[in-house]
């Protein structure tokens, strides 16, 4: 492993769970040093110690809530002060979920926009001077496949991800001259945590087979980024959906997307994770 001589770091936000965790492991397995940012909690430290022991690379862990502006400034200040050389930035932290617009507290949308949109833009803005110091550097932003489909219950989430998509594509052209490669990842449904795993398992056959594990998505994402792909869509099923989306008539698509996760709500999954069966909660409701 040449990491001892290699002083560059890959910064990954939202690294303690799901895709962020899988990307951290994928990067480390290729001998890259990782700078992991996540919400406070034991999982981040467990992951950091696992990576250190298994892959013998350098690992920094930084606990913070990136939805707050002050924390992003502190993080960038820390990197600058400690002279940590970042040559890859992976803006992965985000809040997902399917909710009805009028049933959700406004604060949820506020946090969602702060984290998905503002944190990505702000962190990119703050760390771009650091990235430019390297002759070649990379930015990976995580959007979503749902930006092509306009699914129900994804209003704000889908809009934040569309923002990321536009932002990345435009920025890519702008930063070409500086040797900074920008890619945008558009994954479909992922089993990123226990509730998503259950949600996909209990959905229809199509959703179930298209759902990917984060550890399947991570290598595709990293390869795409290093090869300079503009937009990365992992999974053959997802590419099939996207292809058919262009061919199918509107009414049929309408029908298909309406069936998407129709029977299970996030609330029911939460109950199930606490050991309460779905059937009973349905009756109770």
């Amino acid at each position, binding site marked *: 492993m040449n990491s001892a001589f290699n002083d560059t770091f890959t910064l990954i936000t939202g690294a303690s769970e799901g895709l962020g965790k899988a990307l951290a492991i994928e990067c480390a397995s290729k001998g890259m040093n990782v700078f992991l940012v996540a919400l406070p909690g034991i999982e981040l430290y467990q992951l950091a110690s*696992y990576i250190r022991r298994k892959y013998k690379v350098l690992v920094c862990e930084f606990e913070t809530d990136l939805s707050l502006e002050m924390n992003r400034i502190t993080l960038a200040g820390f990197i600058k002060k400690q002279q940590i050389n970042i040559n890859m930035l992976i803006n992965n932290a985000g809040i997902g979920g399917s909710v009805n617009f009028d049933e959700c507290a406004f604060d949820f949308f506020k946090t969602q926009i702060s984290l998905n949109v503002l944190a990505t833009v702000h962190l990119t803005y703050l760390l771009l001077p650091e990235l430019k110091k390297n002759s070649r550097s990379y930015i990976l932003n995580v959007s979503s496949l749902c930006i092509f489909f306009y699914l129900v219950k994804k209003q704000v989430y889908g809009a934040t991800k569309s923002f990321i998509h536009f932002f990345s594509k435009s920025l890519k052209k702008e930063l070409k001259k500086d040797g900074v490669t920008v890619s945008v990842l558009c994954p479909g449904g992922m089993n990123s945590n*226990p509730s998503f*795993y259950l949600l996909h398992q209990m959905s229809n056959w199509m959703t179930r087979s298209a759902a990917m*594990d984060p550890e399947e998505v991570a290598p595709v994402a990293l390869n795409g980024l290093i090869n300079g792909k503009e937009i990365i869509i992992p999974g053959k099923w997802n590419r099939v959906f996207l292809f058919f989306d262009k061919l199918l008539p509107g009414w049929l698509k309408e029908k298909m997307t309406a069936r998407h996760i129709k029977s299970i709500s996030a609330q029911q999954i939460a109950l*199930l994770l*606490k050991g309460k069966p779905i059937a009973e909660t349905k009756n109770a409701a």
Partner: protein
Amino acid sequence: MKILVTGASGYIGNKLTHALAERGHNIHALVRSPSSADLLRHQNIRVFVGDIMDPDSLAVAMKDCRQVYHAAALAKLWDRNRNNFYKINVGGTENVLQAALKEGVSKLVYTSSCGVWAPDEDHIYTENDPRISSFDSDYDLSKYLAEKLVREYCYKGLFTVIVNPPRVYGPGLERYSNAVNRFITQILNKKIIPLPWNLDTKANYTFIDDVINGHILAMEKGLGGERYILGGENISYKKMVDTIAAYSGRKPVFVRIPPAMIQTWAWMELAIAKLSLYEPSFTPRLAKRIQLSKMVDSSKAIRQLGYRITAFEEGMQTTIDHLKSKNYELRFQ
């Protein structure tokens, strides 16, 4: 001292109940079926018919108990209703924890599993390791969620310790969860044994008596909110079948099955199970898992609890003698 054991008619729970009774404790054994009383005949064991899903029966069984061993679980590969895994293993565990907190139990040991970690070819797991890849089984996920709950209750004031046994073998009741004994029985009774293609695949096998001692040691010395791997040796399939063949004196023909064929076979079993009342002996996720290594390290339990590992050969010898002496027949086919 009065001690409650849940799952007292299970493979681990039953042995644990008897081991504790032998030490002179008064054991409250919680079982679902009155017929299980036959398995618990001992002057120090009092059988309580109840269910972890029924908080009232739990409260009755837990009355005046100072310690609780929670070993009850739905320990299966597959269930027609996947909700049952969460209902019983997570919801049932919460019932036990709640009752214990209410009763003022001084310490609770929870029997988890090494299924909370994912297979990994070249990493030896310790207690501090995170879950690396996604869950692919409802059982594993339910155990992971239950562990989270058990740790949460530690903050609520209940002294809890978690133990994680890997694949357990050795003399005991024949139960569905007892896969290694079932495999040995097959070698004793059958002429052709299918094996995975890669015989270097390693897993951890632990002798039942060690697991029982580990539970009791965790109760005596375990630190609050901590987990302890109660493992044995990390052994490859090759070493395992060689050892079993050597000690049993049988020489069946071992046939290595290519991965694609194992997978197809498993999907077929699952398809049949979905269409009939038949319970699959084999599922696609088990097929995937038996072809991947998972190694664990028990040094934390050795260091902090004084846990001891029986040598694999010694444990296997005892197990094979036991299975042979019982004139054991294939009961799982």
